[in-house]
């Protein structure tokens, strides 16, 4: 059995004049944990919608299991949650899962196991409509797992949840990933992807900007946010320093990117030696937003392909 689960070939989706997904090509292989990263509106959900048979593609194609199965046959063997959890509100958690087993034509034996995994076994007979959003989302994960899927697709699974809910869901995803399930996690949160994924695909405006290992994307050493009484002296020092990269001024602080991992104590000692009196100093990691900006800016003129 081959390891390729899903392949996309130049898949595009246009809504009128707007191109939501632009000639996207991807391969999803068994055994990896993929992150599909991109800001809101970058085409993540549309891409997933197309491979999940709910959005029609404008051009291009995709195939499941190297074309050995039709899309709906393949979907019976995977599990997916997109956007909000959708269940029959008048049915209990258990009844909903039994229905899903009927649709997926799988045995309903592992319903109990999955409901226990997501901590809903005690509420199995409550109607779906009585659940909180966090519980609904957990039920959705259980539903996506009842057929022991070859691939689990999660689209923004922590969206709209409170911190406790987010924590529970992330813990759950890590547990599932550790069990060896292939996962495709779409998110706009870099740290979410960073925590669980081995591979990452970055989308912006429907175009793929990056595909590869997660640490390749997050390989920055952060930056210093710094201010001193004597600005000129500080600026000269920063410019002369060999381990520092770009310098820019934002509000009253200088932002200096690091080429190398330098600890704050080490650096403040050096500044002290140079006789610079600091008024503000801290080390920060770039936000997803700036990460994206740097990524999209550096690759603006390159072809979208890798």
């Amino acid at each position: 059995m081959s390891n390729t689960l899903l392949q996309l070939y130049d898949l595009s989706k246009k809504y009128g004049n707007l191109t939501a997904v632009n000639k996207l090509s991807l391969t999803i292989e068994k055994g990896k944990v993929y992150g599909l990263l991109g800001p809101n509106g970058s085409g993540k959900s549309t891409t997933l919608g197309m491979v999940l048979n709910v959005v029609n593609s404008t051009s291009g194609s995709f195939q499941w299991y190297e074309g050995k199965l039709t899309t709906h046959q393949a979907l019976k063997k995977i599990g997916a949650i997109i956007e909000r959890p959708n269940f029959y509100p008048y049915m209990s958690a258990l009844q909903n899962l039994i229905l899903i087993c009927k649709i997926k034509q799988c045995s309903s034996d592992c319903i109990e196991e999955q409901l226990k995994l997501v901590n809903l076994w005690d509420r199995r007979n409550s109607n779906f409509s009585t659940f909180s959003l966090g519980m609904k989302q957990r039920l959705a994960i259980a539903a996506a797992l009842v057929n022991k899927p070859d691939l689990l697709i999660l689209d923004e699974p922590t969206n709209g949840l409170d911190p406790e809910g987010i924590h529970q869901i992330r813990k759950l995803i890590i547990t599932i990933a550790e069990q060896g399930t292939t996962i495709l996690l779409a998110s706009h949160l870099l740290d979410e992807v960073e925590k669980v994924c081995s591979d990452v695909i970055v989308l912006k405006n429907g175009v793929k900007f990056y595909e590869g290992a997660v640490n390749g994307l997050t390989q920055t050493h952060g930056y210093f946010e710094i201010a001193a009484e004597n600005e000129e002296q500080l600026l000269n020092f920063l410019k002369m320093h060999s381990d520092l990269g770009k310098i820019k001024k934002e509000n009253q602080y200088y932002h200096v990117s690091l080429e190398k991992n330098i600890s704050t104590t080490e650096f403040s000692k050096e500044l002290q030696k140079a006789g610079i009196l600091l008024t503000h100093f801290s080390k920060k990691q770039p936000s997803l937003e700036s990460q994206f900006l740097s990524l999209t800016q550096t690759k603006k003129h390159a072809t979208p392909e890798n």
Partner: protein
Amino acid sequence: MQLLKIELYKLWHSRISKVLIFGYFLLIFSIAILSTIKIEFGPINFYLAEQGIFNFPYIWHFNTFMIALLKVFFAIIIVAMIGNEYSNKTLKQNLIDGLSKAEFLRSKVYAILAFVLTSTLLVFIISLILGGIYSDYDELPIIFTDLEYLVAYTVKLFGFFTFCLFLSILIKRSAFALGFLALWQVIEGISFGLMKWTLSDLIPQISAEQIFKFFPLNAMGNLIKEPFSRLSAIQNIADQIGDGFVKDYSVSFLNIIIVLIWSALFIYGSYSLLKRRDL
């Protein structure tokens, strides 16, 4: 079969649709209540059951016509069962879980077919019982004549429900779909009026009735013509007034074909809507 089971499972676990379905089947039995209508008013002694409405083979015509009126009630269930899939977004979830769009539609059509056949069976049984009690004739050949009314009943219901299916997939919201159904009835009425008014001037060879019988709701209505004027009691009166009339009450084969073609179009239309739309 698996698809029918899925659909029935969905309906069975909804209290509202369960109540409505049982309500509908119980209402079918309510035609028996007609048999108990007895009016005694001084010298006038009127006992409905003895007016011949339950005579074989007339009973097939009368019961299928009367019970078919209840179809509107069942239309609510059909429209709700599609509308809910849209409003709960469970249609989307069903597709993600691996049901194809064609399978989704088939599960609905099978459910409709199952209910139509159950309904027909009930009409058959209740007519047999009522006829057995009240009919003046009980020879087997007479009992089993005019059974084509049952075929017409099946086709009529199936046509009507597939129309509901199509409308609810088109409009996605149950209440609006029902509203549109009522509106459509009016549209057919008005267009018939307009045709009658203008057509005779434009193309005198074709009468408005000839075109009108191809309209979906009218074609369904024509399948079983009103049975009242066929009652011997009423025909006697008409004869006495000197206004005797001859009307063809039989089930027309052409009509059955027209309705079946509409059903096929509605199902195909539903499918192409499902296929084309993004969810």
